[in-house]
């Protein structure tokens, strides 16, 4: 098996690099020096593949595959958590949001860090004391074994796929924009690499890939911060004052706040309200982030890789250190991109601002078309690519462990399967998850899948967290409550997203286009300037064409003409529903097994009693 894995690894790695190089033919990519770009990409990928090769030689048992034998040190595990958690959304997305909307982008980022407090206080230690490989293991400690395993696996897979697909799609779009690799080839490359890492190297290789990625990302971000602050002599107020006084920043804010002028526009960039205009939306997003992270299967899984609860706690501390440092660097990168690159250029290449950090790297070292600028951009692009692959590998491992360990070994085999069969099941599950993610990502070409990230967090916070917290800390919690809570929380979060403004509403787009046609029609008689009249007529024609292209009875995916709920982030509704479902159903049902195991669970949860056996895989 190991020989086969190594051979597959070499063949796939060669295929990935050669296909990528041949596919980079599209004109118009931001990077001009392609050979240089592929050399940097090749170096990063090759270093991770070498580690995977060595890691694959040590995967003998299911414990090796899922948790690297449970003996990873806290610092390494903390960095791996940071590598698992610092997604493309944080590095590329948040720096872009800050470059385009200033303060509101910062607020978005802060939630991802605050989320680790509940992880530290409520989850890390009990999970290490009670669990083995998955969320299902912790829940099945008290609750009915087969049903809990099956249902918790369902929500874990939903969360992992919902979070994974936007990473793959977003990553492919960005790599295409930066280095010109075709979208499908880019998805296939990400997919092939994640399969190599996880199927061959299991948790050991995934951990190393995540550690390397975290070090690269934090290091690259630090270099960008140094370069951005160098001209200001590392004097932070001078840098911030330059942003306030920047004509580019002021011109970008002016259309959003028409009543202000001059430096007041620059100051407005540093105040809330340009992006997150509704506090209730911000609260809902904050709740989903803060509570969802604590129940993300790929984060929970990392606590089973350390030897005891103390190491789990220290892992979180290291993770917070890495994530916090990287976030602070990203904040500076976002503001620096607004100052050095400018929002118009960033938005013209990607309206979400995802290319702000790579463009800043290019601008700080020589600019466009220079070898140094392209080298820096290639390095940042390679780091972004490693970021995506590392996060996706962690999610694939979490989803595969839910399918193989919880569904196959747990629910179907009643927990009785030989070690070798468990490892084979884990590898097959990895292939299944990888193929699903690759297929859906290829089909999702051109689709807006960003809302799936929010859905992933909402499901984790509404389904997994209530079940986990109440199983751990509430004596009256029953299996029935947990099952209804997980299914109900998942369904509620999915339904709320399906009827939210995140979906496409053709009828609304048609009405908006017709309103524009009508508004221009009313304005035209009073316009005497010929050029403006021509422009308005052209705009009216385009709006009419848009309206004509949409049937009058067109509706959203679920048959709606307009959103039923005016919230993009459903957390504020779905999380209380998730908790209420577990509590109400538990109060009206009786579970003698859960009651009988409560004392054992409390003692183990608090003391780590028996953990020596738990890590003796």
């Amino acid at each position, binding site marked *: 098996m190991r020989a086969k894995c190594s051979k597959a690894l070499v063949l796939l790695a060669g295929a990935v690099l050669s296909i990528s190089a041949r596919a980079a033919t599209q004109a118009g990519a931001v990077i001009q020096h392609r050979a240089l770009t592929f050399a940097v990409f090749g170096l990063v990928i090759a270093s991770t593949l070498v580690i995977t090769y060595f890691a694959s030689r040590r995967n003998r048992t299911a414990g090796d595959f899922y948790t690297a034998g449970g003996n990873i040190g806290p610092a390494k595990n903390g960095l791996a958590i940071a590598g698992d958690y610092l997604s493309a959304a944080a590095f590329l997305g948040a720096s872009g949001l800050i470059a385009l909307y200033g303060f509101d982008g910062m607020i978005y980022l802060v939630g991802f860090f605050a989320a*680790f407090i509940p992880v*530290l*206080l409520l989850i890390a230690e009990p999970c290490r004391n009670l669990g083995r490989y998955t969320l299902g*293991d912790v829940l099945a400690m008290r609750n009915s*074994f087969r049903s809990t395993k099956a249902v918790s696996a369902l929500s874990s897979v939903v969360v992992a796929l919902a979070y994974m697909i936007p990473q793959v799609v977003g990553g492919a779009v960005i790599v295409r924009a930066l280095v010109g690799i075709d979208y499908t080839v880019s998805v296939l490359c990400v997919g092939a690499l994640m399969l190599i890492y996880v199927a061959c190297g299991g948790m050991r290789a995934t951990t190393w890939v995540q550690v390397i990625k975290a070090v690269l990302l934090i290091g690259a971000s630090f270099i960008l911060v140094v370069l951005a602050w160098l001209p200001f002599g590392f004097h932070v107020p001078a840098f911030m004052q330059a942003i306030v006084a920047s004509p580019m920043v002021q011109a970008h804010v002016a259309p959003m706040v028409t009543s202000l002028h001059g430096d007041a526009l620059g100051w407005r960039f540093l105040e809330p309200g340009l992006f997150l205009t509704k506090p209730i939306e911000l609260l809902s997003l904050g709740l989903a982030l803060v509570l969802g992270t604590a129940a993300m299967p790929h984060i929970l899984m990392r606590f089973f890789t350390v030897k005891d609860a103390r190491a789990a706690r220290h892992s979180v501390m290291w993770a917070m250190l890495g994530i916090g440092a990287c976030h602070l660097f990203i904040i500076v990168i976002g503001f620096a991109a607004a100052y050095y690159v400018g929002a118009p250029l960033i938005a013209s290449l990607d309206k979400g601002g995802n290319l702000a950090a790579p463009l800043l790297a290019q601008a700080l070292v020589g600019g466009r078309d220079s070898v140094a600028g392209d080298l820096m951009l290639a390095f940042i692009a390679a780091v972004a690519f490693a970021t995506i692959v590392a996060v996706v590998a962690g999610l694939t491992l979490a989803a595969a462990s839910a399918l193989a360990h919880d569904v196959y070994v747990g629910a179907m085999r009643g*927990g009785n399967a030989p070690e070798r069969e468990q490892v084979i099941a884990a590898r097959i599950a990895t292939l299944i998850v990888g193929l699903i993610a690759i297929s859906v990502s290829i089909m999702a070409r051109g689709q807006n899948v960003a809302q799936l990230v929010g859905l992933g967090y909402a499901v984790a916070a509404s389904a997994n967290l209530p079940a986990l917290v109440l199983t751990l800390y509430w004596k009256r919690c029953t299996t029935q409550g947990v099952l209804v809570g997980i299914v109900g929380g998942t369904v509620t979060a999915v339904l709320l997203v399906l009827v939210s403004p995140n979906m496409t509403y053709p009828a609304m787009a048609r009405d908006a286009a017709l309103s524009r046609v009508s508004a221009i029609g009313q304005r035209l008689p009073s316009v005497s300037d010929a050029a403006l009249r021509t422009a308005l007529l052209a705009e009216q024609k385009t709006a009419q064409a848009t309206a004509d292209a949409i049937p009058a009875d067109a509706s959203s995916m679920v048959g709606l003409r307009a959103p039923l709920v005016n919230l993009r982030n459903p957390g504020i509704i779905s999380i209380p529903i998730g908790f209420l479902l577990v509590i109400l159903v538990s109060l009206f049902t009786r579970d003698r097994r859960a009651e009988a*195991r409560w004392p054992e669970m409390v*003692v183990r949860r608090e003391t780590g009693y*028996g953990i020596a056996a*738990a890590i003796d895989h």
Partner: protein
Amino acid sequence: MQSNHVDWLAMQANEQFRGLVRHRRNTIVALGLVAALYYFSIPALIAWFPSFFTLRLAPGINLGLVFAVSQYPFGGLIAYVFLRRTASIDRLAADLLQQLAPATAAGSAAPAVSAFDLGEHAHAR
């Protein structure tokens, strides 16, 4: 469904164990409340006192920026306090286990062997 070797109920009823649970619970509740208040004060202040964020402190720096950035050292402080408090809880737990384990798991090299392990989870250990 209780273990063949371990009297979980007796361990749970032990006064020292109850003190340990209380100590940890108080730590978690206190730190959790403080952390939640500090983080969720961002949307609350934006909703009710937006002018709080616009107060200018230095060239290019307002109170909003300082408050948002302060979430990072504040989160670190919460984590540090928690680690310090749980270090003493760990010592209590270790003492407790030394007292209880020989009595409750006499003759058992692996005290974790319980109903949990002997039933459907037999494979899992």
